[in-house]
């Protein structure tokens, strides 16, 4: 599945996101340390690292949930600070581990909230379409979040993120709290949506297996810096250095061990 810049419709590779010297410090801790990076339109990028490596912080500088101390982040070559934060966030889908469905709103109201705050009413047909996109039927529309399982809730979270036809989808440990079966299924589903809708996706995860299986490009972070930037194939072929290989070895060893157990 070689999907990098070449699939862009406008010919030469276009960068949807550009980081230049982005730095963020929390007290003594350097969360993001002078990161410069470009992300091509329609690519699916995974940001991998251990806890505290700065991956979530870097992700949140895109939709300005965190403002960097130095450096710039550009969306379509416009500095994100030049846009009002609410307007910027309406162009970006955001899915995170906490899900954050509004408990006082129905599923349909949750899904329609982004367009609603932008002054737009989402028709029922569109809500059904979004529910269908995350493999839930229309009967879920009138339910309350408290009536749903964790996996169903995160499906709604994904539908809500996509309701405003965003160009970019940001995901912060989106499947971290889900059981392995749901997690695998939802991962595949999101990747399919990414392809179908022509999204540019950045996913933060600590799970290298998930990154390798879903992404086109894997960035490994450590102490606020990007220490590896490779395709899944390259990583599996041994590229990326020791830290990256340390992360890759975990699923690889598990796969071997499982293969050994197969009768």
């Amino acid at each position, binding site marked *: 599945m070689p999907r990098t810049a070449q699939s862009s419709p406008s010919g030469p590779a276009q960068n949807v996101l550009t980081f230049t010297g982005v730095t963020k410090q929390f007290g003594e801790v350097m969360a993001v340390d002078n990161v410069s990076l470009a992300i091509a339109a329609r690519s699916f990028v995974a940001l991998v690292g251990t806890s505290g490596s700065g991956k979530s912080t870097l992700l949140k500088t895109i939709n300005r949930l965190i403002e960097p101390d130095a450096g710039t982040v550009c969306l379509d070559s416009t500095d994100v600070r030049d846009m009002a*934060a*609410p307007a910027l966030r309406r162009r970006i889908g955001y899915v995170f581990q906490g899900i*954050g469905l*509004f408990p*006082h709103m129905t599923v349909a109201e949750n899904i329609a909230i*982004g367009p609603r705050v932008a002054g737009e009413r989402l028709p029922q047909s569109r809500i059904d379409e979004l529910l269908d996109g995350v493999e839930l039927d229309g009967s879920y529309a009138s339910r309350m979040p408290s009536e749903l399982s964790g996996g169903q809730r995160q499906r709604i979270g994904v539908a809500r993120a996509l309701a*405003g036809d965003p160009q970019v989808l940001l995901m912060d440990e989106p499947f971290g709290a889900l059981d392995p079966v749901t997690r695998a299924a939802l991962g595949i589903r999101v990747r399919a949506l990414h392809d179908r809708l022509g999204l540019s996706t950045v996913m933060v995860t600590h799970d290298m297996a998930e990154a390798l299986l879903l992404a086109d490009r894997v960035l490994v972070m450590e102490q606020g810096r990007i220490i590896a930037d490779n395709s899944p194939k390259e990583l599996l072929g041994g590229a990326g250095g020791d830290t990256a290989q340390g992360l890759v070895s975990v699923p690889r060893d598990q796969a071997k061990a499982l293969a050994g157990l197969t009768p």
Partner: protein
Amino acid sequence: MTDILDALLGLGDKLAAHVILAAAAIALGIAIALPLAVWASRSQPVAKIALGFASLVQTIPALALLALFFPILLSLRAVFGEGLPTLGFLPALLALALYALLPILRNAVTAREHMAAGVLEAADGVGMTGWQKLRMVEAPLAAPYIMAGIRTAAVWTIGAATLSTTIGQPSLGDPIFAGLQTQNWALVLAGCIASAGLAIIADTLLGAVERGFAERKKWLIWGGGAIALLGIAASAWALRAQSNDDAVVIGAKSFSEQYILAQLVGQRLEDAGYAVEYRDGLGSAVVHNAVTTGAIDIAFDYTGTIWTNQLGRTDNPGREETYQTIAAWERETTGTRVLGRLGFENAYALAMRQDRAAQLGIVTMEDLARAAPNLTIGGDVEFFERPEWIAVRDAYSLKFADQRNFTSTFMYDALTGGEADVISAYTSDGRVAADKLVIIEDIKGAFPSYDAIVLLSPDTAQDAKLVAILEPLMGAIDVDAMRRANFAVDRLDNKKSPRAAAEELARDIGL
């Protein structure tokens, strides 16, 4: 039981006034607390200061908080002009609103603190502006908790509003204070039942609204709210129908004699076609300022009280000169007119049971001073703070084994029941004779004289017709007549209402 029922049925306008006062105070409390809570949720120092202040207010006894607004508003007249009311609705409203602040503020702030972080992150993530986040997420999620706070505030406010009687605001406290003073328990119970009933109804209605918010049932929110508003509207309508700006307002301190005098004067004025309103149960400290500032039109006071508390004098030049000095002082400094003396004195005096005094051989204050180290003295709630007591104590070097405070009604019971050996009695009190008490002779004249006088506010003093109606009362009431009237109200059997006692007093003195 029928007494209580009758008393309850007579409380209509007090209830209406109570509802309006409590509702306005809660509304003002909400109007201050909610914006403050929003600000507090965005700033830690603001949260600390606001909650600290609200908690501090809560530690002030409600009675004191209400009374404190009188001097505060008086000093604010420098800014807002003489038209600023210092008694009645405004100070009661402000004090009660402050009191209502804490539960609403605390619940709102707590609700915001405990809101799921993920939900707030999602609100930002989907592109809500600050205002949208407040309106669509924070407010609806905090609403049930805020309603719970409003419920608590409502119950507190309805209870505390009974105390606004002391600053001249009609409320369900009127029957409670009047009944406590005259030992009319039916009246006390009626006031308590009405106020408790009102609190329960308010709590139930607001509870329905709270449940409506928590369970997202719109009909509960609108239904509960609508019934509450209907009750408030009905009260406002009832008050509108009877409010009268031209009415003559007669103030009375919280004891029987004052209630009777107010009724005596009120009846004369009503007969002459005046509209009359009564502000019964005013704090003693409040009355003088109330009449000089025109918050009430007519008040009854005692020369000795004004002598020590207003003029700050401790000497005793004799009865006549005290009176003349006060009349001149009022005319020159406050513009208040001292219309004249009613004819009797209600002096502070120390009294004992006859048998006990005889047993200890006490006739004069000097005898008392010798026996004092083994005796307990009881005083009304303000007695031991009054300059008169301090003067008397020092004049005779009185040192008692113990001193205790009672309300003026219970003071007599304390004496007959042996809880106190000596009390600060009032010479015009019917119970002095009825309880077989002996007044201990003040041979040094340390207590000033306490001629009962009538004060007219500066505006009312101009009303020649009113002055002409009141003039026949001057010098007309001797101490025995006043004692009989007081006792008719204070005695436990065959009690009379202050109004009935006033009618009898009028016949008694030949009016």
